[in-house]
């Protein structure tokens, strides 16, 4: 009988030793993607104080067991004689180490090609040349050499000047092409980085766009004594856009750059100080003149006449001349349009 009981006790002990069940008040939070389990059950403080290491080990064992129970429940697969579990994607949000990459902005050509549906075709590295009777590379090593061999003589076109150096012409043409490409590349970079590039100063008609040329024409027209008021225009000619602020005869004032707070404060303080100090500004010359006038020095007629002439004000002072206000150009037009709106 005793042996029977002890047998049962032994069996149950073994079962508890080998069991995979763990009892918890609150369920653990799992994130199987990161193999993470969080146990928010309160800790047993007395055991923790008594034997820290044993208690943490026991606690961790239970939690690892619970985590493994979850993992073993996942769908499995056999890969090279080992069983792998398929982990779900992790939900634990961690910061990245670098920001997300930004997509590269398209160049002007790429934009155009996309709109028109032009696709890049791969060029062959070597091309057969009938003239030289051999393969020559389309770029790079030995290309320049091949060109030199090929162009030992150049035809003078019927339309061109017979004395013109065709070799030089070809060379400069090539150089200009390279320069143009470089300029376009830089322009693309500026566009991508949203850098403002000067709209003027580019006078090469081959490189500049129609827009740029129109800007130049519009601005140069204003370079007369009358600020371009009497310049003739071509029929249906359009003005360059967005130039109103730049034009010298414009009624719209260009915004001056931002004044730093320190400067602004200094200016304001100067004004305030001059008012507060209360000391009137003494114009010494004026004072002396007045003194001379009223202190019986009137015998000298010449002097007084001179002074009176000097002190006489110009006739037209009240009406200030201003080109900008009276100009019949854009200012008025603009006002009218505003009214209409």
């Amino acid at each position, binding site marked *: 009988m005793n042996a029977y009981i002890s047998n049962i006790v032994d069996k149950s002990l073994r079962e508890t030793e080998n069991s995979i069940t763990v009892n918890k008040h609150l369920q653990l939070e799992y994130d199987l993607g990161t193999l993470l389990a969080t*146990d928010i059950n309160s800790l047993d403080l007395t055991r923790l104080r008594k034997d820290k290491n044993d208690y943490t080990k026991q606690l961790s064992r239970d939690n690892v067991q619970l985590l493994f129970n979850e993992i073993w429940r996942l769908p499995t697969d056999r890969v090279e004689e*080992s069983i792998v579990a398929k982990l779900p994607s992790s939900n634990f949000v961690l910061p990245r180490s670098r920001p997300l990459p930004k997509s590269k902005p398209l160049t002007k050509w790429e934009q155009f090609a996309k709109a028109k549906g032009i696709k890049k075709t791969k060029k062959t590295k070597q091309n057969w040349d009938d003239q030289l009777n051999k393969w020559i590379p389309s770029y790079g090593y030995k290309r320049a050499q091949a060109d030199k061999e090929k162009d030992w003589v150049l035809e003078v076109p019927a339309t061109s000047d017979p004395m013109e150096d065709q070799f030089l012409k070809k060379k400069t043409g090539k150089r200009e092409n390279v320069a143009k490409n470089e300029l376009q590349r830089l322009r693309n970079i500026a566009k991508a980085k949203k850098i403002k590039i000067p709209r003027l100063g580019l006078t090469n008609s081959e490189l500049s766009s129609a827009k740029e040329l129109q800007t130049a024409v519009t601005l140069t027209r204003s370079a007369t004594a009358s600020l371009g008021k009497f310049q003739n225009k071509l029929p249906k000619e359009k003005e360059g856009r967005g130039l109103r602020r730049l034009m010298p005869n414009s009624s719209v004032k260009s915004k001056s750059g931002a004044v730093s707070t320190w400067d602004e404060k200094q200016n304001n303080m100067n004004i305030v100080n001059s008012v507060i100090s209360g000391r009137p500004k003494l114009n010494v010359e004026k004072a002396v003149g007045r003194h001379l006038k009223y202190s019986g020095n009137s015998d000298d007629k010449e002097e007084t006449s001179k002074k009176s002439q000097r002190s006489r004000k110009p006739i037209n002072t009240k009406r200030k001349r201003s080109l900008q206000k009276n100009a019949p150009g854009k200012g008025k037009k603009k006002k009218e349009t505003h009214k209409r709106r």
Partner: protein
Amino acid sequence: MAIQRVVKPTTRKGKRVLEARQPITIEGPKQTLVLHGRKTSDFIRLGLKDLYRLKKPDAKLLSRNNDITIFENASPVEELCRKYETSLFIMGSHSKKRPNNLIIGRMYNYSLLDMVELGLDSFQSLADFVGPKITLGTKPCLIFNGPAWDQMDELKHLKSMFVDLFHRENVENIRLQGLEHAISFTATADNKILLRSYKVLLKKSGCKTPRVELEEMGPHLDFTFRRSKLASEDLMKQACRKPKILKVAKRKNVSRDGLGTLHGRIHVGKQNITSLQTRKMKGLKKTAEEKRAEKKQRKRPLTAETNSTKPVASKKRKVE
């Protein structure tokens, strides 16, 4: 005149190096820089070395002392992290005011995101524990014990930092027999954090899932929480942004109820009621006359068309 070109890498290798430093959409495991502060104790030096060993393929250990007080000025560490291309760092230092100091921090875009300072109270190294160690680069199971991890704001951050530090990388599959490492973090009520690292032993349990036994492997670290510098919410949000390709597209019109049954909603076009076959009744049947009339009507439009075309043609002829 020579054109001044934009500076480009001169060598192929240089080009490759610069390309490798560009941000990528899906990042690999974060690299860790382990470095010493102004002065270090034996304790700290061994601790750093053990942490380095735990992290090993994704870590870099610097052996010299660096005169850095990171809470005053973080830029030297930022520069080092940029130099070694690491986004995590562990710095150890020792001073009278803060003995056995360990600072764990993260970088975002080569600038400091957040860091916490932990005091090392007790320490036992990997070598102090006899027994087998784990294989290099094993993905550990992370166990967080104690309610404090979800209650205190600073500990929440520290949890995120520990996960970031130890979780290695995201994997799709994991070999079940390869789960041999567990790290447990216990937060006690008195602001202490106990880090224990165990080797996992899988025992037979009589069913599919094995019985787990743990064997302490080291290192064994007890921390107290000291200072911290946490990231602003905006910056953290920016840093946690997920790439578009990882976002799961929402499935429209499909839902699951509480029992797990899949429900779908489908859209059917409007039904044509006029042509609906209803119940047949004798009274509603068409008479023979009605049928004839319908037939006639069906034919009529055709004749009308032929009539209309003829005069047009004749007109045209007239014009010609």
